[in-house]
């Protein structure tokens, strides 16, 4: 029963990891920007939701909507005013990575200063578990997480497969010139990638604020998971990122079955190492050896 419980916990956590990782992977795939501040997006949307819903007592759909708007503005502004200028001068992988890293550091400390560095959580009846079977407890948030993750992923696939801009987004990583011949501005496509990628963190951020709570440093952890999932899934493969996110969530919880909790994070990185050394192309990715 413990095993089953851990798997269910893992699926809940993994579904949210998957969504966040898909956002990162989408941005990385379409723009080749190593968006380290993706974790910062997560933290921002979570805190906006927390502040509106739990402190100002705003109705929940409006709180979520506000979180969406703020996080999209943040992502797009970063693309326009930070990554854009960096790309126009140097634009090597490293300069963008450092710039993004700097943004993540600033956001984390800003949140700490404004909201405090302690732990906060959004009180909600949804995180209260019910006993489904003897010894098996599942909270409504688990079901919500899985449903939303699947819905978002399907919607994203439709968007990428059926719309012009979606197709362009997939093409952008291959060749910016190709996108221009489509009659689309690569800048607009990259803006769209940032908007969508950032939007995908909102469900995870909101649910996390209810279940395991938030602190100012949460962005760093989210980022680690996203990077790990993107690589394990194979760079450029959204399907891979989603599956890998799920895998990492389950692995992290399953590790608890036999090991002490402090090793559960290590499980994530053992998987990452195994993939980097044995199968650097990930589940579904292309070969990447230099």
């Amino acid at each position, binding site marked *: 029963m413990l095993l089953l419980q851990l798997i269910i916990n893992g699926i809940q956590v993994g579904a949210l990891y998957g969504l966040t990782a898909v956002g990162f992977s989408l941005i990385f795939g379409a723009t080749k920007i190593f968006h380290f501040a993706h974790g910062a997006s997560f933290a921002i949307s979570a805190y906006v939701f927390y502040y509106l819903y739990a402190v100002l007592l705003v109705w929940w759909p409006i709180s979520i909507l506000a979180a969406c708007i703020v996080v999209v503005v943040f992502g797009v502004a970063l693309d326009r005013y930070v990554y854009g200028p960096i790309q126009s001068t140097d634009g090597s992988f490293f300069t963008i990575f450092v710039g993004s890293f700097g943004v993540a550091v600033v956001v984390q400390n800003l949140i700490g200063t404004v909201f405090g560095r302690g732990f906060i959580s959004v009180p909600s009846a949804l995180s209260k*578990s019910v006993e489904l079977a003897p010894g098996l407890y599942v909270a409504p948030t688990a079901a919500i997480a899985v449903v939303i993750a699947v819905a978002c992923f399907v919607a994203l696939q439709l968007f990428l497969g059926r719309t012009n801009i979606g197709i362009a987004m997939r093409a952008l990583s291959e060749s910016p010139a190709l996108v221009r011949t489509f009659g689309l501005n690569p800048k607009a496509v990259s803006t769209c990638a940032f908007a969508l990628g950032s939007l995908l963190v909102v469900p995870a951020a909101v649910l996390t604020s209810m279940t395991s709570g938030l602190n100012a440093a949460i962005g760093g952890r989210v980022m680690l998971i996203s990077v790990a999932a993107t690589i394990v899934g194979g760079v450029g493969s959204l399907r891979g990122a989603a599956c890998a996110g799920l895998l990492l969530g389950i692995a992290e919880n399953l590790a*608890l079955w036999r090991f002490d909790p402090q090793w559960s994070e290590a499980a994530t990185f053992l998987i990452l190492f195994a993939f980097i050394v044995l199968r650097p192309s990930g589940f579904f990715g292309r070969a990447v050896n230099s």
Partner: protein
Amino acid sequence: MPSLRKAAVLAFSLLAASAAPVSAQDLRIGAIFPLSGANADYGDLYMGATELAVSHLNEAKVLGGKLSIAYEDSQALPQQGVIAMNKLVNVEKVPYVLSAFTGVSKAISTTAARSRTVAVNGGGVGPDLAELGEYFWNVIPLANFEVRAIAPYLVQKRGLKRFVLVYVDDPLGQSIKRELEASLAPLGGVLAETLSVPSNAQQFSGIAARVRDAKPDVVYIASFGAQQSQIIKQLRDNGVTQQLASYSGFAIPAIAGLAEAKGALFTTQRIDWNSDDPVTKRFTREYQAKTSRAPSAYAANYYNAVLLFGTLAASLRKAGLPVTGENLLAKRREIGTFDLVGGRVTFEKDGTIRSAMQINEVGGEPAAVETVPAP
């Protein structure tokens, strides 16, 4: 906003420090508290008490000059603590430093011993704090007393025999684990499962599953600060309905205000807030008035630590001796027993104190559920 108040206190003390004429008679001591980071709540709590003690000592004019405190931020991290300690010892040249948190206290103890500076702990409760040399004092009974007080109460009076321990894997958590292992068996209790967590962990749903799986009667939590709230909330969210128990780490406002924590039992040293003893009375009244908080054992400890310095420094001054770490130590050994908040306190040879303990219930009235006399 606690941080605003804290900032105001700081700004005020800075102003006061810069405005007041500095005389050769003035005394300065140091304090290394977590003023930022996840455990800033504690620093906030301690500072209210130390500031109160300073104002009381300065009003009493027993020191022949003004007393002030140089605060340094440890963020509850050992390394920051050592850097702060170096600054206090080398720049401020203080003879006496208030310390908090087991890890930080252990870290600064070497510098304390080498520079012959007295370090006084009023918050950390790891039992190994008793072994840090003659310059390291504790004005708080250490965690071994806490475990020894609550274990018989839970097993014998409440009939809760099967324990699960969720602990942070640091010196404090490890010592609580050792202490539980040692004290449960003779009482007829069992430590069914011990689950260690990293100090920065956030997700405890898996831990909750393992706790449930162990089918405990009581879950003992040995963490600190913000993480405790997370553990409690997620245990309750994930179907752990059993009695919760802890040590004095639960004596913070964040836990008192957490709905899920209601009914949890925890130990603190015994302090009779309604006692007729004048020191306790004055502290209780003014602390409440000044900080609009109920007095707590932590606050009393740090108030006591400053008061202890005042008593020692005053008698050194009277004897015409300089206030140095060495002299403070000699004086403490000479006097031995002090009247502090909560009553008369006697120091053991190793620089620790013993005290009666009490068991409290979160959200319970009255505050103390049970009193356990000093061993």
